[in-house]
């Protein structure tokens, strides 16, 4: 047993982080959030992601892919979650090999979630699932345009989609924890950094605890590829991301309630990702039945 990242996996993690830092930095994020016309899908970035193998990561090399597995995909999506990278990343990744141009990032693919939500419908070239009758929603997440299709009988969700979404949640949770800690070191009140107050310290400590538990669960699910374990990991990752962003907001004080701070962007995306995929209740029932 060696349940730690291999050197290659570390390199991949670092590589994706650097690519995103160079190509989708804070300024790019804020331009999208603050732009007058709402979020626009950056097609050029999409093709660059394609060229870097983001979408073709798990395609066999014989089919022009990178030939890597779920653990590597999870690491890449974790980085996307950290950077709050917008777009229907999971749907396009899943379409690689099945939809012409998805692997290279030339075709943008979205999917209808079992909840009826369809992200990025207008920007996508291809929609998987039945989006008939979908109406636009004034999206709570400023970086994700949404449509809503009429409710349909719940369909089985692709476990890989659930896993990659969980990986994004994990990245977001880790980022919120780091953001809170950085702010807690810099902001002073009562003559000392607020991070010296235990009430603040303990919020941050619990953010880390939730993140690390979710990390072990998500990584293990990537290794076993067991659908039940994937859904359980999703539950913990949702919690780590949503509560992490909430606690980060608290640490930020009034600044946390502003549009200007990035905290709300993480929170709103975490809310959206939690809504995609199976509900907490369904996962808990599944794991109760397994007892």
């Amino acid at each position, binding site marked *: 047993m*060696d349940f730690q990242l291999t050197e290659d996996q570390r390199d991949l993690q670092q590589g994706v982080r650097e690519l995103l830092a160079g190509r989708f930095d804070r300024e790019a994020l804020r331009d999208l959030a603050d732009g007058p016309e709402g979020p626009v899908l950056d097609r050029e970035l999409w093709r660059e992601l394609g060229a870097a193998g983001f979408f073709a990561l798990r395609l066999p090399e014989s089919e022009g892919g990178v030939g890597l597995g779920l653990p590597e995909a999870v690491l890449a999506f974790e980085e996307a979650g950290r950077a709050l990278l917008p777009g229907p990343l999971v749907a396009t990744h899943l379409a690689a090999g099945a939809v012409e141009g998805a692997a290279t990032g030339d075709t943008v693919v979205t999917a209808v979630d079992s909840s009826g939500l369809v992200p990025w419908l207008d920007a996508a070239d291809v929609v998987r699932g039945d989006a008939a009758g979908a109406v636009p929603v004034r999206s709570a997440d400023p970086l994700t345009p949404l449509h809503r299709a009429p409710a349909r009988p719940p369909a089985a969700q692709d476990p890989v989609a659930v896993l990659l979404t969980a990986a994004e949640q994990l990245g977001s949770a880790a980022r919120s924890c780091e953001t809170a800690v950085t702010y807690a070191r810099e902001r002073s009140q009562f003559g000392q950094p607020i991070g010296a107050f235990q009430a603040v*310290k303990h919020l941050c*400590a619990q953010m880390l605890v939730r993140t690390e538990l979710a990390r*072990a669960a998500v990584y293990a699910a990537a290794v076993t590829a067991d659908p039940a374990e994937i859904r359980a990991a999703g539950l913990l990752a949702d919690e780590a991301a949503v509560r992490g962003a909430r606690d980060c907001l608290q640490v930020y004080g009034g600044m946390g309630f502003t549009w200007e701070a990035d905290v709300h962007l993480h929170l709103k995306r975490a809310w959206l990702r939690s809504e995609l995929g199976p509900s907490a209740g369904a996962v*808990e*029932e599944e794991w*109760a039945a397994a*007892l």
Partner: protein
Amino acid sequence: MDLTYTEEEEEFRAGLRAWLADVLPQLPPRPDPTDWPGRRAYDLGWQRRLYDAGYAGLHWPVDAGGRGATPTQHLIYLEETERAGAPYVGANFVGLLHAGPTIAAEGTAEQRARWLPPILRGDEAWCQGFSEPDAGSDLAALRTRAVRDGDHYVVTGSKIWTSHAEVADWCELLVRTTPVSEDVPKHRGISWLALPMDAPGVTVRPLRTLAGSTEFAEMFLDEVRVPVGNRVGDENDGWRVTMVTLSFERGTAFVGEVVACRRTLGALAAEARKNGRWDDPVLRRRLGRLNVEFNALWRLTQWNVSEAQRTGGVPGTGGSVFKLRYSHARQELYDTAAEVLGAGALDLDHEWVLDRLSSLSYTIAAGTSQIQQNIVAERILGLPKGR
């Protein structure tokens, strides 16, 4: 990232399983929890069997008489012994997990030869005399004094919450050898001594826990003479010596308990199905949630153990993170057990009710949750110390 066990690890597991299947039916009946001499004999007897079979001190270094097993083998050992329902480490806890490893790391050749073999063979039991009435979380504030008199220390003071003190032969004792002053901060001036529990001047007074049992005790030391040769490490260097002990944990501290919790969870579900409470969706979801939680805690254990394995046995920072979540989950488990039991939750004859009571100590013993959160915030996240 690899969760499969190597051939060698699987062989180790198979050998252990076969041995457990053979030896467990031969064990005498478990003693009554209030029968301390009986418990001591039972726990040491189990240790002797481990010793004879070559499993004693599995995780100890070879030159200390151990087997130098990898953290993963230790994980397998703890997992399999718990699965098979083998006895707990019990009265051997401090000897095997604290005092022994400290002596192995910091003791002289003579000290190692004197104290380590009897621990491994199950001849001698140890207890831990660290906490004092006025030094709990702030352990370095301890005041028990040791004054040099020739080749002895004369020790006076009191200790509290000393688990298994009644049946221990030895106590790993922290004492103050140099008083705190402007030049000597509280962490300096502490020394680590091996105290024979039968020395004149040692009085043990059992304390009754909220579970009604006497798991721990007060210990009064009245001018107890301890040979200077019983000091492990340099004089005034006891704080560092103690931290070496604590760092022996290697992520395996709660392996057996997590396995046990998962088994209890299965039993809770079976009981709920039988008594009809299973029909309550709120309870069902709570049980499902705990199943998710303990599965993740198991994965986190594997993660931490793998990390320790990579760093050559030095534990990562995962210990406090794990303990925070695990101690909370364990309390949650037994609160849920009470829900399953309904009115039965007030019946002390049910083992879950006693386990519920003992679970209450998990967020206190070995560093309270507040202290663990301080550690995570300051040492892992790098937040500043408060004033």
